């Protein structure tokens, strides 16, 4: 149970970073931390004590396997995370080229 809670704490750390930091790269890092905590959460869901990799060959009827589905989910989510991170970084670099700063207080032109 502790590990699950630690995952959730990591999620909140990322959220804290997103909410309080003023540097656009640091905001992106906060988002990545949140994402990684979620991946760890998924890996924990599939974990079974003393389980082995779920590759079925003969004579393994009574062994315990770890759950392979969360691992597949994490792999897919990592690919998606790669795409989002690449987009974030591309926009951040373009913003830096236009404004010469990473500080969101100096970038704010639009009023939500």
């Amino acid at each position, binding site marked *: 149970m502790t590990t699950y809670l630690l995952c959730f704490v990591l*999620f909140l750390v990322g*959220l804290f970073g*997103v909410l309080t930091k003023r540097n*656009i790269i640091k*905001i992106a890092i906060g*988002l990545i931390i*949140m*994402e990684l905590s*979620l991946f760890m*959460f*998924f890996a924990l*869901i599939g974990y079974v004590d003393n389980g082995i990799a779920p590759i079925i060959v003969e004579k393994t009827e009574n062994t315990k396997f770890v759950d392979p*589905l*969360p691992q597949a*989910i994490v792999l*897919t*989510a990592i690919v*998606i995370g790669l*795409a*989002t991170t690449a*987009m*974030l970084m591309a*926009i*951040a670099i*373009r*913003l830096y080229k*236009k*404004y010469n700063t990473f500080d969101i207080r100096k*970038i*704010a*032109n*639009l009023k*939500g």
Partner: protein
Amino acid sequence: MNSLIPLFIILPLATAILIMLFGRLAKVLQKALPSAVLLFLTGLSFYFIISWDSGIYIYEIGGWGPIDNIPISIYFVLDGLSILMLCIINLVGFLSGFYAISYIKRYTGENKFYALFCLMIAGMNGVVLSGDIFNLYVYLEIAAISSYALVAFEVEKEKLEASYKYQVLGCLSSFFILLNIGLLYWYTKSLNIADISRIMEASANKNLIIFIQILFIAGFGLKAALIPFHAWLPDAHSSAPSPISAMLSGVLIKAIGIYLIIRLFFNMFDITYEIALLITVIGTLSMVIGVLLAIGQWDMKRLLAYHSISQMGYVIIGIGIGMLILAKGGNKSWAALSIAGGLFHMTNHAVFKGLLFLNAGAVEYTTGTRNLKELGGLSGSMPVTSSTSLSASMAISGIPPFNGFFSKLIIIIAAAKAQYFLLTFLAISVSIITLASFLKLQKKTFYGKLKNWNLNKIKEAPFTMCFSMIVLAILCIGLSLLIIPGIRENIMIHVVYTLINKSNYLLILSEL
């Protein structure tokens, strides 16, 4: 009919790839192909809606059947609501794509624009068809990431900033949704929506489910820009190129926000009074605050974007009242009426808000500005834009022969029948404020005295833009036919049918 379902995802995806491969070589291909494919898909979805016999169609990808009654494959599920959403997505997508042929000529990198556009359509079609909660997330991210890139398509200061803001909030909402998927899998050991629903009926851990529901409301609320989560919408929707604004405002916030709220809260969770109340309150807040924020806007597209928030509030109210009636065990036919009103308004909103954004794009295309203080008197030189914009404005503010009137009327009648008189009053007054706001837009843009423009420069928009606007304007009147009893029973009631009878959706488990 069954084997045609995956075409909705394959064709836009293949189009995007073909454009990236061969678009450089043949310019005609990259312009004509998206419109042709989307026209075909629109036809296909209308064929579905006509030939549909109120059943639920299931498509197993890869042919993996269930083992011990546990569905292990990835499923596409096609029911009434999905078909309605497919019609909206592909129709508005086709018209925006056709409009973009003239509009996007000014920019470089046209092939990237069309490829991202097709990817976004593929993502939304996937969200609507998916019967599996994780694939739903994957398709949602495909649609969302391509929309992030499209918002920043004109690489300028404000556009980049709007895109960054949209991305940060969009990523947050995606993480909430992913966390929820993890929690649901942890609790039920299944990813199929119907299967999760069955397992949660058998054993309910109340606290966890309420936590999951609230996180889902936050996640999808961020995607749909309901009021506490609306900060990104006006920037993102006004920064995108106009055909994309029409897609974002007309379709995207519905397909990856409202649709998923409806689908999951009706078909996956049990409806409880507290959650229904929360959804109704959020809807009311969106409706009222959105329109109040829209009053002071002088940028044409920002004004339209704030009205999107307000109109989404109407949809959510319709859904919320239906949920409240169902949770209290009230009269099911009134609940069905209310939900049908909400879905009807969603359809109408796709049409008229898409049209209004396309009009704004036409005005910007010819005059180069969208500041209402600098515009004026364009009705003489741009008759098509002016008249279509007038009909869309009357539709959104609820003037009788147009479709917006009937859907608002249904929602208001349902609210009155369920004895929520405050909601009734608010819905009527918000409609009046909307009318005032759009009278301002019409007067400042198309009527009044002509500002000192170079008159030779201002002429009507090119043919493809006019065509899209005229078709949407005809639909603004044509959709009010859905209120006629014979047609209404055939389409709207079927759509609501699977929503209010949850056991009906669970039947797909036995059909596997």
